[in-house]
């Protein structure tokens, strides 16, 4: 019991956050910047940080009446300037195409679209067509009309989404495009990275993934996933769902949440620290998203960052903040270094330095590079009980080895021989067929718990924990198995395997 309270000392609570960090560090001007998304966007952009582009803003009911919705692009995000907690944001994915049978005389859709939008303003007949012109598709596939948008904007203007209902401004901004890496982990919406910066040092970070439950919003209060990040490497560690349910996989899938390497990691930390300097917020939560084309962009700044980040990281903020307090950090680079050194996975790095080998877990992500350069990332079982590496037939087909698999299947292979004969049969098969097909690198007879099988082997390159491997992989049906790839001893010479690595939290929990 006493131990429990002692351990909790490292946690940052609401009281301490408000009194010890927000009050002394965040001055009024900084708060204003954080509370107004438009001001924040303007200032950050002026200082050279990338932000989502502003499309238009609507300051009053008058502006709304005059606003031409036809000028909106096909996809955009509508936000309240002073909204908080992700409330009041509408994200539109595309313009709804007019139904074909509704307008059979129009062979193409675009001219129709155009004529409607031209008619849109004021024209009497436009009223009837109005509905079709101004229909967009939302994240969940539902349709949103101009009337819906107007009503939503009126609510924003009246302050329905701002703190204490003060009248607000609505604005449209560009919709960010989802990074491929995050696609399998995300339900609609865009994940973002929350970085807490104090005294020019990044102290903690988490990746927030929208879920079905959070309605595509990257907000933990609404049920998004929060994944802790190792500051030194930008690799994800532990994860929680919503307000504090510990998870290991994306719910409903087999996607492991740990071990995701976040791209542009140093840039993200740099942007967060720069944003602190620009906003003068001593204690800042910067939300940074990664756009597929533009790279990292600052979404917004928070003067009162939430405390759930501690849950996602299984770590207390107070302890970390105390270590950073009073340090004199002169440059952004120094801030990044200090944060990485203080709050990164030192142990693993040390082992890697001593042994010159990479430390990996029993399940790791492997990027396979197929015949025509096609890259597929999958989870592989790291199996020291297997000698060689195997991959699943379907996966091999996807990687461009369909031809060689078909060729191999068409071969007449001997059956019903004893184990003693296997060696000579293998040798004769090799003599006969290797070189017969350009991709067929070898043929092996493998005895496993499932019995005997003959498998073709192919050459394939792969990336495992940033190490490039040249694999000689045998191809086999692994349909019923959860991992489509096994990496065997033969290819693991440059690694050390830590059985606890992937699921430290989970294993302890069970």
């Amino acid at each position, binding site marked *: 019991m006493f131990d429990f309270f002692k351990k909790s000392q490292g946690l940052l609570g609401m009281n301490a956050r408000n009194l010890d960090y927000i009050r002394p560090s965040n001055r009024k001007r900084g708060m204003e910047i954080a509370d107004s998304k438009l001001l924040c966007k303007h200032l950050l952009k002026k200082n050279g940080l990338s932000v989502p582009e502003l499309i238009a803003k609507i300051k009053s009911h008058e502006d709304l009446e005059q606003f031409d919705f036809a000028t909106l692009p096909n996809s955009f995000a509508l936000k309240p300037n002073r909204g908080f907690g992700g409330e009041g944001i509408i994200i539109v994915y595309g313009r709804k195409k007019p139904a074909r049978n509704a307008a059979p005389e129009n062979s193409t859709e675009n001219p129709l679209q155009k004529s409607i939008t031209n008619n849109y303003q004021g024209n009497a007949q436009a009223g009837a067509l109005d509905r079709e012109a101004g229909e967009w598709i939302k994240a969940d596939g539902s349709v949103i009309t101009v009337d819906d948008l107007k009503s939503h904007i009126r*609510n924003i203007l009246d302050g329905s989404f701002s703190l204490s209902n003060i009248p607000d401004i609505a604005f449209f901004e560009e919709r960010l495009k989802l990074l491929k890496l995050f696609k399998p982990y995300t339900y609609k919406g865009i994940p973002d990275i929350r970085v807490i910066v104090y005294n020019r040092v990044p102290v903690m970070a988490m990746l927030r993934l929208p879920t079905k439950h959070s309605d595509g919003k990257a907000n933990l209060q609404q049920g998004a996933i929060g994944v802790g990040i190792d500051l030194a490497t930008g690799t994800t560690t532990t994860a929680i769902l919503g307000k504090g349910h510990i998870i290991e996989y994306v719910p409903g899938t087999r996607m492991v949440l740990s071990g995701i390497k976040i791209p542009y990691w140093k840039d993200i930390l740099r942007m967060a620290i720069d944003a602190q300097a620009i906003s003068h917020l001593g204690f800042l939560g910067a939300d940074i998203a990664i756009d597929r084309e533009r790279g990292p962009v600052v979404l917004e700044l928070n003067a009162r960052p939430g405390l759930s980040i501690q849950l996602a990281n299984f770590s207390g903020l107070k302890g970390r903040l105390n270590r950073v307090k009073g340090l004199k950090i002169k440059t952004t680079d120094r801030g990044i270094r200090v944060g990485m050194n203080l709050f990164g996975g030192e142990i693993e790095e040390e082992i890697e330095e001593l042994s010159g080998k990479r430390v990996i877990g029993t399940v790791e992500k492997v990027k396979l590079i197929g015949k025509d350069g096609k890259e597929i990332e999958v989870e592989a079982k790291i199996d020291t009980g297997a000698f060689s590496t195997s991959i699943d037939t379907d996966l091999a087909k996807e990687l461009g080895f369909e031809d060689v698999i078909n060729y191999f299947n068409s071969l007449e292979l001997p059956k019903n021989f004893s184990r003693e004969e296997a060696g000579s049969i293998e040798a004769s098969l090799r003599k006969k067929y290797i070189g017969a097909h350009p991709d067929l690198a070898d043929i092996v007879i493998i005895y496993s718990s499932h019995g005997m099988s003959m498998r073709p082997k192919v050459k394939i390159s792969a990336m495992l924990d940033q190490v490039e491997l040249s694999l000689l992989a045998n191809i086999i049906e692994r349909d019923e198995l959860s991992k489509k790839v096994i990496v065997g001893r033969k290819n693991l010479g440059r690694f050390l395997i830590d059985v606890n690595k992937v699921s430290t939290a989970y294993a302890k929990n069970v």
Partner: protein
Amino acid sequence: MQYHPLIAFFVEQGVPVQTVLLLLMLPVIATLVAFFRQVIGIKAFGIYTPSIITFALLAFDPNGVKYGIAIFVSVIVVGMLARFVLKRFRLLYLPRVAITLSIISLAILIILVIGGMYQRTGLAAVSIFPLLIMITLAEKFVATQIEKGSRAAFILAVETLIISVIGYFLVSWHALTALILHFPWIILFTFLINFSLGKWTGLRVTEYFRFRKITRYL
């Protein structure tokens, strides 16, 4: 009961003792609300709503808790139903709250009439002001529903009710009222308590609960 000379002086000047007592009790209730927020972590709708509901409960006496909770729950339930019904019309904020308030006051009126029909006139006999206070609670409730969602608003309403009921028992606790009438200066202690609460940086009880799953990894 023996009053402190100061209280006796107030009463002599024509201030009803009940009024004196309630005014002296307000700091106690406010402190209670602050304590619940900072140390326990129960939020409620700010400090005004739980305090005023506490006094509304007192005004419902002698059956304060019974009637008070009944009215409170009716307001919240009708408020939630009204939101459910009004949602599809997409109205602006104030007209929507106005309609909600109207629906709630009609509902309360019906409840009073039904109570009367079953010879339960105790409720109808109470003063109108505590009833109005309860009804206007709906605005706070609707605003919270819009800002934070129905679930959060419901939780905050329950928290408000809990604090108000505790406040009610505190204020109607005879030992405490006697103490305050006898030693009115002790309410100055609330300043001290609030000062320490204002400087309190420890974890709240609810935060220990919130972080319980990760404390073992720290």
